[in-house]
């Protein structure tokens, strides 16, 4: 009994973090038709940003880190990505890969490669039955769930969200209806970057911080996006829950390496068998149109 409460809490914690990253990855893929390989490295930037601001109160460092992420996103979109949109899918993939490497190297240069850590702002433990669980994880998971709810409400209930979904659906016709693709692309990339950075910031107190930490988050987030419908914005969130649920189940019975291998094997099979998932032709369709 107690072990199941523990597993459930771990599952909620892990899937909320993954959901935020998958949501941001899905947003970029949907609007810009780019797979952002650097998404995990952006999380890493968020963790280091919190480390750099460890002298400040957590609730002040967190929004500052979000702002850092937003500005970084704007700089990357205006400075790098917009030059490669019409150069084909492979070029954009390489461009974001390069951005990831630069971020890793940059951080390693400034902070060295030695592991860092930060204290959680809440150090207490919550007792549920005979399970004790860190307060911070429960608070952070609740915060992420609230944030995702607000984001989805904005996307599906406001004029701004309507414009964004239209632009994801058909960027040319959105332009005919007065919606600037350039502005949408910049805004979406900046927001998605800020969200990935924020996810890294929230996870930071629970992990060992090093320049390559993003790697382990990228693959599951990518799978969470791939198993959802193309262009869907809520889909990656559900995808993240599904990926983490499967992983949690496997991990309950197997050691972590075996569990991970089986998980990625299962996901690969699922993606091959699932015809309405994101396909190559969907990603590249816009290149032909423009």
């Amino acid at each position, binding site marked *: 009994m107690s072990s199941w409460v523990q597993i459930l809490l771990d599952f909620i914690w892990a899937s909320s973090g993954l959901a935020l990253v998958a949501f941001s990855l899905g947003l970029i893929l949907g609007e810009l038709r780019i797979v952002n390989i650097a998404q995990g490295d952006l999380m890493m930037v968020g963790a280091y940003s919190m480390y750099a601001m460890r002298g400040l109160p957590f609730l002040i460092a967190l929004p500052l880190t979000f702002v850092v992420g937003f500005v970084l996103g704007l700089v990357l979109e205006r400075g790098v990505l917009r030059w490669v949109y019409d150069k084909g899918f492979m070029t954009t993939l390489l461009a974001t890969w390069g951005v990831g490497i630069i971020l890793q190297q940059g951080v390693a240069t400034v902070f060295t490669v030695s592991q860092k850590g930060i204290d959680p702002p809440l150090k207490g433990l919550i007792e549920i039955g005979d399970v004790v669980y860190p307060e911070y994880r429960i608070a952070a998971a609740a915060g992420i769930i609230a944030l995702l709810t607000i984001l989805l409400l904005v996307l599906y209930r406001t004029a701004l969200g309507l414009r964004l979904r239209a632009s994801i659906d058909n960027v040319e016709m959105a*332009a*005919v*209806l007065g919606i600037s693709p350039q502005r949408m692309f910049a805004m979406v990339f900046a927001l998605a970057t800020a969200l990935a950075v924020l996810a890294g910031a929230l996870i930071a107190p629970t992990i060992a911080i090093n320049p390559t930490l993003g790697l382990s988050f990228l693959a599951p987030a990518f799978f969470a996006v791939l198993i959802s419908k193309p262009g869907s914005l809520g889909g990656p969130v559900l995808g993240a829950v599904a990926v983490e649920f499967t992983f949690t189940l496997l991990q309950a019975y197997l050691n972590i390496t075996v569990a991970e291998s089986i998980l990625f094997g299962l996901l690969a099979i699922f993606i091959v068998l699932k015809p309405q998932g994101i396909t190559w032709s969907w990603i590249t369709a816009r290149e032909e149109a423009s």
Partner: protein
Amino acid sequence: MLFAAHDIAGGYGAIHIVRNISFELDAGDTLALLGRNGMGKTTLLRTLVGLADRFAGGVAVDGKPLPPRNPRALARLGVTFVPDDRGVFARLTVAENIRLAQLAAYGETAPDVYALFPDLKRRMLQPAGTLSGGQQQQLAIARALATAPRLLIVDELSQGLQPSVVEDLARALIEVTGQSGLALILVDQNPKLAMRICDKVMVMQRGEVVASGSSAMLGSDPRFFDLLIVS
């Protein structure tokens, strides 16, 4: 002068498809653009609205020249476009498609598009991608009209649609252009239909305009139909 195109050359990337195209439209003018398949009608429309490349010439609204490849600049001046694939936002509902147009409206008084197309009113909450071809074309036209435009540009109104649906669409266009001073550029494979809706005609061949005049005049000239017959 509402809309003027002079000496337009356009195409895609480095490929020049249309050239030497000039015409002018006043409020309420209706122009049918005819020609066989592959003659450059779609390319001309897309060049005009900024979705294809303009290599030479100018487009002006109210005498004000417009930048190339900028559909938003035309939208802001009340020029809107219905592409040959209808271009509905497939994942958005019918109501959301219309709402977007209302958010982007140029004029104050858009026609009541749900009254014009009652079918759409019944399907307001349906994703546009699940509509039939005819319904999607109704939605595309309705969405364009909901922007309260001054100039509506339609590529292939009747293509692939049943005669009864085409008749409804034609009646709607005749009604709105007749009442409101809305100008229209219409491309259609059916010259009789296009000339019933439009007062003026332009015929394209291999990227250039080879005949133009009033629908009444050209419609009674046998050589005119020769230009349109697939040989």
